[in-house]
């Protein structure tokens, strides 16, 4: 299994508070992704990174920011959490050079509840 961890695994917070989720990999993969998973919507891309300090928006990026200061860490920040951001968040990694088809490996997920 690819070495991907996410922290925290569960979090309950209140509306308006900032929240940071962490994704850590030990595979030295270039690409990292943050998705959210909601019933009826499958997995939707929030932001992704194609290298240290190189990030871009996904389809549902409003209200989220990311940072990647090291290859192994990709942080997702909710600046002011809202109830609509209650979801399960997954981090994924991919290595383009050896992987022609963008096969992704996922972390275990973080369940976030915003009250």
């Amino acid at each position: 299994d690819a070495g991907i961890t996410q922290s925290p695994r569960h979090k309950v917070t209140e509306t308006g508070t900032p929240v940071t989720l962490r994704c850590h990999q030990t595979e030295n993969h270039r690409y990292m992704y943050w998705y959210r998973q909601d019933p009826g919507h499958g997995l939707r891309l929030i932001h992704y990174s194609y290298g240290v300090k190189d990030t871009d928006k996904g389809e549902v990026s409003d209200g989220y920011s990311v940072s990647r200061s090291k290859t192994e860490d990709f942080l997702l920040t909710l600046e002011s959490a809202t109830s609509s951001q209650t979801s399960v968040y997954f981090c994924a990694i991919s290595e383009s050079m050896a992987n022609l088809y963008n096969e992704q490996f996922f972390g275990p997920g973080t369940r976030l509840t915003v009250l």
Partner: protein
Amino acid sequence: TQLLEQSPQFLSIQEGENLTVYCNSSSVFSSLQWYRQEPGEGPVLLVTVVTGGEVKKLKRLTFQFGDARKDSSLHITAAQTGDTGLYLCAGDAYGGATNKLIFGTGTLLAVQP
């Protein structure tokens, strides 16, 4: 906008039955992947299909990529309770020009003993 639609959304069957799950799009994908996700865990890659008409087998699971590379199917023979989970298809967005995937909405399979 590229979309992947999966059907059915839910499927409950008895152990030993056969089933087919479909993944359809109006867009062409250069490759398509199937993932399985168990409760409380992240998706795990099962297979990647890349050639139109390609068929890949993984034990009791058979994956097919449509000739026009717009659709795919997953057939499970003699389902077992261990096959229970959420099945997701995913295609490379923008013809592979980016390293992004588009995911289908998933098929939730429950195999009853």
